[in-house]
C-alpha cells in the first residue's frame, strides 16, 4: 500500500475537472490544480526516476523547486523540456512525461544492476580508473549510462522569448506571509510594488500550514491580501522565479507560462528588494534514506492539504525539530497510523493521535523498490509504507548571498542565516530565521526599511514560536549507505573519502564528489555535506563555510536568456543601399566585416572561381563598376581639424590642399598600423576620413576619444556619415569615358581633376562627390551620392557601360586587382606587429616633427630591429600554382627550420597570367631577388622575393 487520494479536501484541486497525462507510457489521472508529482503520488506511483550514477529507484521527495529526485522530460504541444521538476509542473491533458536516466522506464530500468557494484564506484572512481590509455575511450559508454534528462536534438524553439525591463520601488521575492505583509505595507505607503513567487499560487506555507492572521485563517488572509494588493495596482507574478541578483541590485526573473509561450525574462531595477524566500527542509542521515516513499515532512503536508493526497497508511515521521508535529498530527487526522520518532529526548510538543517516540532516531530504512520499514537506533523495527523526514530547515539564502551578503551561523536553527546588512536589500521571514508567524509578518514589514507603511504589521497566533531544532548531522563511519546528495548520488562515504584524500576545502569537496553540482544545486544536501566535512576534519560548520552561491537559483532555459538575439538577429548583417539591385544582377553575397556584399556576379553559369577571374581580367581591359559604399566616410570639422588629423595620422595631412586627397596610415599607440585609407580635404576646416569598411566603428571611436581627450569639443566636430552615402566606383582604361557619359557637370580633364583630387557635380537633383582615387591601380572615379538616390546612378552607369563592355565586379575580383598592385588590406597583409616602416613608408617616421599617435613606439628597440617582417611580393616559377595563403617562408640553421614570415595574400592574376602573392618576410625589403623555401601543409616550394607591386610599377595606368 502507498499514497492515495482522499475522497474530500484539497484546497488547490478542482475535482470537477479531471486531467489525464502520460508518464512513462502509462496514463495518470488527476485533477486540475495537480502537479505532475501530486498526480503521480495520488495514483500510487512510487518510483518516478532513476538516480544519476547508481540507477537507484527514486521517488518524490519534495513539493517545490528543491526537488532532487522527481525530474521528468516533458513534451507538450510540440515543445520539449528536459529535466523539469515534477513538483512544479502542473498536470495537463496533452502532456507526455518521461522519467530520466531510465531505460525502458523508471520501474524496469535495465541498468539497475549498477547499484550492486556501488562499493566499487565511489566518488572520483572515474578520474582514477579511466585515466589510461585515454578517458575518451570510455566516455561514450559512461555518458550513456549516467546522467539525467535527454535533450531532443531535433526540437527547436520556434518563438523568441520576451524580455522585459521593469522599474519599481519595491520588489518582493516570495509571496508567503512575510512577502505578502511586506507588499501590503509598501503598497499602503503608495510605492509601486512587484511581487514574485515561484509557485503556481501565492501564499507560501500558509497554503498548507495552520495559522491565524488578523483573526482569519491563514488561507483566507492570503486571499484577502492578494485581492487588496491587486486592487492597489501591485503586480503579482506567480510561476516566476527570481533566479539572480546582480550588481547594483538588478534582479533577474524567469516567468513560466502555461499557454505554450517561451518563458519571459524580467530585468527588474527596484529601489528596494525584500527577500522573503523561505526555507527548505533537510533530509535526515540514515541508511537508505533515498528509498521511494521517504518524503520531506513538509512536502507530505503540502500534498495532503493542497491536493488531498495522503502519502501513506503506516507513516513514520522522523524529526529533529517541532515543525514535524503538525505534520504527524495532520497525517493521523487524515486516517494514517503515525509514529513520530524524535531524536530529542523530551518531545517538546504533542502530536494528537500520533504516537511519539522521544530520544530515538531512525538508523536504517528497509525495502527494495520502496520503503517497507525502518529500524531505530535501539534496534526496534517499525513497519512503514512511508517515512516523512524533517531534518531541520535551511533558509534559502541564495539570492542574499549572490548580493554579497555575509552569512551568520545560528545554533538554535542549525543553519546559516543572513548576517549583514545590504544596501537596498531587506530579508524577512524564514530566510531571516524567523519562525513564529507574528515575527515573520513583522520582519516582512521591517525588511522594507524606509519603504514601509505606517500601519502596524498584521497580528497572528498559531505556528510554533521556535523549532527547537537539535542538530542531526551525518556522522563519519555510519553503517550502510547514507545519501547526502540525492540528485548526484553522493553518499556520506564519498564525503569522508574526499576528506581523507585531503579535499578539505568545501569548494574542493564539491568538485571532487560533485556534491551540490546537480540541477538542484544542492538545495537539500549542501548543509548536510559540509556538516559532515566539518565533523570529519574536526572543524566547526561556520569554519568550513559554504560554497559560493551563484545564479541561477533554478535552471533557466537558454531561450529565455537569449530573447530575440537568435538566428539572423544574433549578429545582424549590414546591407548595402543597393542590396536588392545586386541580387537582381545575379550577385553572390558574402559577409565582409559585418557587411553583406557581392563577392562576385554571374557564377551560375561558370562557377565562382571562373567568375572572379573573368571579372578581374575584364576590369583591366575596359571599365569596371564596383559598389564601394561600405568605405568609411567620417567627417572631421572645425578650426582645429587640420591639427587633429595631423595627430591622428602617421602622415602629415595639414599640408593637403582643399580639394585634394592623400593616402595615409593610422597607428595605434604601440606604433602598429591600425588602419589605412584616403583622407579628403573638402575645405580648410573640413576633412573626410575614408577608412577601411570593417574599421569604421573603431576608427570613429578612436577619433572621438582623441577629440574629447586632447582637443576639446569646441575645436573639432566628428560625424560618421558612412551610412548616408553610397559610393559607386568606376575603374579602368575607359573609366573617364563612362563618367563623362553620366553628365555629372564636373570638369573631368586631368588638369581639373588629377589623380588624388575631388570634384563636385550633380546627378539629377542630387549633389555628387567625385574622388579620383584608385584601389585597382587603374584610372578610377569614386562617385558618392545620397544613399537613397544611388539606384538611378547605378542604373545609369550600367546603361552607359554597355557600349564600353563594362564589367560589374564583386569584392573577390577587387582583391586580385589590388594585390596585383601590392596594395594592402589591413589585418590581412599586416599583423599585430606591423609598423609603417615595414610597409615601405618610412618618411614620416624619420622626418615628422609634430606629434602623432604611436610616434614614440616607432623608435623603441622593437621598432628599430633590422630583422622586422616587411611587406614583399612573392613569385613562383612559370606554370606553378599560387602559394597557399598562410604558408611560411622558412630557413634552415643546422637541422632546425625557422619561420621567416608568411604569405598574406595569394591569387592567380588573369592579367599577368601567373600567380602573385604578398607576404611579410624578415628584412624582406632588402632581399628582393632572393629565393626562399616556402612550407605549407607539409609541402615545400620555392619562391622569389620581389617588390610588392607586380603590375605597372611606374603607375602609368592611373592616367591611362
Amino acid at each position, binding site marked *: 500500500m502507498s499514497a492515495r487520494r482522499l475522497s474530500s479536501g484539497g484546497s488547490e484541486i478542482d475535482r470537477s475537472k479531471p486531467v489525464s497525462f502520460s508518464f512513462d507510457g502509462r496514463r495518470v489521472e488527476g485533477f486540475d490544480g495537480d502537479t505532475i508529482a501530486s498526480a503521480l503520488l495520488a495514483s500510487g506511483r512510487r518510483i518516478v526516476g532513476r538516480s544519476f550514477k547508481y540507477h537507484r529507484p527514486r521517488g518524490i521527495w519534495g513539493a517545490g523547486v528543491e526537488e532532487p529526485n522527481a525530474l521528468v522530460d516533458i513534451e507538450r504541444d510540440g515543445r520539449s523540456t528536459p529535466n523539469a521538476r515534477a513538483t512544479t509542473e502542473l498536470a495537463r491533458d496533452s502532456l507526455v512525461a518521461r522519467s530520466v536516466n531510465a531505460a525502458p522506464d523508471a520501474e524496469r530500468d535495465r541498468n539497475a544492476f549498477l547499484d550492486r557494484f556501488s562499493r566499487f564506484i565511489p566518488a572520483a572512481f572515474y578520474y582514477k580508473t579511466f585515466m589510461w590509455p585515454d578517458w575518451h575511450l570510455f566516455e561514450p559508454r559512461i555518458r550513456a549510462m549516467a546522467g539525467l534528462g535527454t535533450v531532443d536534438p531535433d526540437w527547436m524553439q520556434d518563438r523568441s522569448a520576451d524580455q522585459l525591463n521593469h522599474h519599481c520601488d519595491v520588489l518582493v521575492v516570495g509571496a508567503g506571509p512575510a512577502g505578502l505583509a511586506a507588499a501590503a505595507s509598501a503598497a499602503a505607503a503608495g510605492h509601486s510594488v512587484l511581487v514574485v513567487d515561484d509557485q503556481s499560487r501565492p501564499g507560501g506555507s500558509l497554503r498548507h500550514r495552520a495559522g491565524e492572521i488578523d483573526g482569519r485563517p491563514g488561507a483566507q488572509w492570503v486571499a484577502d491580501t492578494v485581492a487588496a494588493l491587486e486592487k492597489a495596482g501591485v503586480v503579482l507574478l506567480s510561476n516566476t522565479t527570481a533566479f539572480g541578483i*546582480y*550588481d*547594483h541590485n*538588478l534582479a533577474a526573473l524567469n516567468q513560466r507560462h502555461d499557454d505554450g509561450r517561451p518563458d519571459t525574462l524580467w*530585468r527588474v*531595477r527596484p529601489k528596494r528588494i525584500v527577500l522573503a524566500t523561505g526555507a527548505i527542509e533537510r533530509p535526515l542521515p540514515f541508511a537508505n534514506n533515498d528509498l521511494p516513499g521517504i518524503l520531506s515532512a513538509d512536502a507530505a503536508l503540502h500534498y495532503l492539504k493542497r491536493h488531498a493526497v495522503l502519502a501513506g497508511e503506516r507513516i513514520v515521521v522522523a524529526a529533529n525539530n517541532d515543525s514535524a508535529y503538525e505534520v504527524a498530527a495532520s497525517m493521523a487526522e487524515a486516517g494514517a497510523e503515525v509514529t513520530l520518532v524524535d531524536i530529542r529526548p523530551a518531545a517538546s510538543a504533542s502530536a494528537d493521535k500520533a504516537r511519539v517516540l522521544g530520544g530515538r532516531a531512525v538508523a536504517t530504512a528497509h525495502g527494495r523498490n520502496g520503503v517497507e520499514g525502518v529500524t531505530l537506533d535501539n534496534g526496534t523495527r517499525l513497519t512503514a509504507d512511508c517515512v516523512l523526514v524533517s531534518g531541520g530547515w535551511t533558509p534559502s539564502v541564495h539570492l542574499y548571498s549572490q548580493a*554579497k551578503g555575509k552569512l551568520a551561523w545560528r545554533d538554535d536553527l542549525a543553519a546559516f542565516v543572513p548576517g549583514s546588512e545590504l544596501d537596498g536589500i531587506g530579508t524577512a521571514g524564514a530566510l531571516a530565521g524567523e519562525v513564529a508567524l507574528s515575527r515573520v509578518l513583522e520582519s516582512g514589514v521591517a525588511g522594507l526599511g524606509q519603504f514601509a507603511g505606517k500601519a502596524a504589521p498584521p497580528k497572528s497566533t498559531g505556528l510554533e514560536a521556535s523549532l527547537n531544532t537539535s542538530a542531526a548531522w551525518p556522522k563519519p563511519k555510519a553503517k550502510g549507505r547514507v545519501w547526502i546528495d540525492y540528485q548526484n548520488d553522493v553518499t556520506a562515504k564519498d564525503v569522508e573519502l574526499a576528506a581523507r584524500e585531503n579535499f578539505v576545502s568545501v569548494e574542493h569537496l564539491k568538485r571532487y564528489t560533485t556534491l551540490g553540482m546537480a540541477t538542484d544545486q544542492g538545495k537539500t544536501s549542501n548543509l548536510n555535506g559540509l556538516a559532515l566535512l566539518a565533523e570529519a576534519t574536526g572543524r566547526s560548520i561556520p569554519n568550513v563555510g559554504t560554497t559560493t552561491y551563484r545564479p541561477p537559483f533554478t535552471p533557466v532555459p537558454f531561450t529565455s536568456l537569449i530573447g530575440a538575439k537568435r538566428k539572423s538577429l544574433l549578429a545582424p548583417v549590414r546591407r548595402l543601399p543597393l542590396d536588392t539591385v545586386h541580387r537582381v544582377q545575379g550577385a553572390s553575397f558574402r559577409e565582409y566585416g559585418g557587411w553583406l556584399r557581392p563577392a562576385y556576379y554571374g557564377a551560375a553559369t561558370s562557377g565562382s572561381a571562373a567568375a572572379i577571374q573573368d571579372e578581374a581580367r575584364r576590369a583591366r581591359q575596359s571599365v569596371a563598376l564596383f559598389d564601394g559604399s561600405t568605405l568609411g566616410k567620417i567627417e572631421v570639422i572645425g578650426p582645429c581639424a587640420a591639427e587633429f588629423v595631423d595627430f591622428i595620422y602617421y602622415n602629415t595631412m595639414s599640408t593637403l590642399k582643399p580639394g585634394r586627397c592623400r593616402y595615409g596610415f593610422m597607428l595605434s*599607440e*604601440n606604433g602598429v598600423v591600425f588602419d589605412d585609407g584616403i583622407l579628403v580635404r573638402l575645405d580648410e576646416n573640413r576633412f573626410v576620413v575614408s577608412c577601411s569598411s570593417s574599421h569604421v566603428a573603431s576608427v570613429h*571611436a578612436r577619433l*572621438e*576619444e582623441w577629440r*574629447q*581627450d*586632447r582637443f*576639446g*569639443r569646441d575645436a573639432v566636430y566628428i560625424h560618421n556619415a558612412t551610412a548616408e552615402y553610397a559610393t559607386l566606383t568606376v575603374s579602368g582604361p575607359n573609366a573617364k569615358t563612362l563618367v563623362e557619359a553620366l553628365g555629372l557637370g564636373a570638369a573631368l580633364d586631368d588638369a581639373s581633376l588629377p589623380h588624388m583630387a575631388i570634384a563636385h557635380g550633380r546627378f539629377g537633383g542630387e549633389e555628387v562627390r567625385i574622388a579620383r582615387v584608385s584601389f585597382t591601380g587603374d584610372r578610377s572615379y569614386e562617385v558618392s551620392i545620397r544613399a537613397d538616390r544611388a539606384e538611378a546612378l547605378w542604373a545609369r552607369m550600367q546603361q552607359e557601360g554597355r557600349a564600353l563592355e563594362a564589367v560589374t565586379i564583386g569584392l573577390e575580383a577587387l582583391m586580385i586587382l589590388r594585390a596585383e598592385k601590392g596594395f594592402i588590406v589591413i589585418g590581412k597583409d599586416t599583423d599585430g606587429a606591423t609598423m609603417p616602416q615595414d610597409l615601405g613608408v618610412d618618411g614620416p617616421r624619420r622626418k615628422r616633427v609634430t*606629434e602623432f599617435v604611436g*610616434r*614614440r*613606439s*616607432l*623608435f*623603441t*628597440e622593437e621598432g628599430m630591429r633590422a630583422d622586422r617582417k616587411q611587406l614583399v611580393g612573392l613569385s613562383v616559377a612559370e606554370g606553378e600554382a599560387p602559394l597557399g595563403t598562410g604558408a611560411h617562408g622558412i630557413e634552415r640553421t643546422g637541422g632546425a627550420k625557422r619561420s621567416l614570415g608568411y604569405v598574406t595574400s595569394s591569387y592567380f592574376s588573369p592579367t599577368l597570367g601567373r600567380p602573385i602573392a604578398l607576404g611579410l618576410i624578415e628584412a624582406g625589403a632588402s632581399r628582393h631577388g632572393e629565393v626562399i623555401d616556402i612550407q605549407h601543409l607539409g609541402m615545400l616550394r620555392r619562391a622569389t622575393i620581389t617588390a610588392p607591386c607586380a603590375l605597372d610599377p611606374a603607375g602609368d595606368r592611373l592616367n591611362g
Partner: protein
Amino acid sequence: MQLFPCPFCGPRDEAEFHYGGEAGNLRPDGREVPAERWADYLHMRANPKGATKEIWVHMTCGEFFALARDTVTHKVAGSVSLGEAERQP
C-alpha cells in the same frame, strides 16, 4: 549589471559602456620620451583594489568621461565628463 552615470545621459546599463583605461594616465609627447616612461604609459597600470578612477565611454552617445568607482564593492561614486575633469582641479 551595474548602473553607470553617463554625464550626458544619466544612469544607464553597464552593457552600453566600454572601458577606456585608467584615468590620469597622461600621454607623454615626443620621440625623446624615455623608454621607461613610454612603457609605463603603454603598459603599466595600478589595478587598484578598492577606490579607482577610470575613463569610460558611453557607446550610445559617444561621451568619454571619468568614473570613480570601487573595484571591490562595485559602488559608483560619480562621474564627470572629460572636459569637466580638466576644469576641476
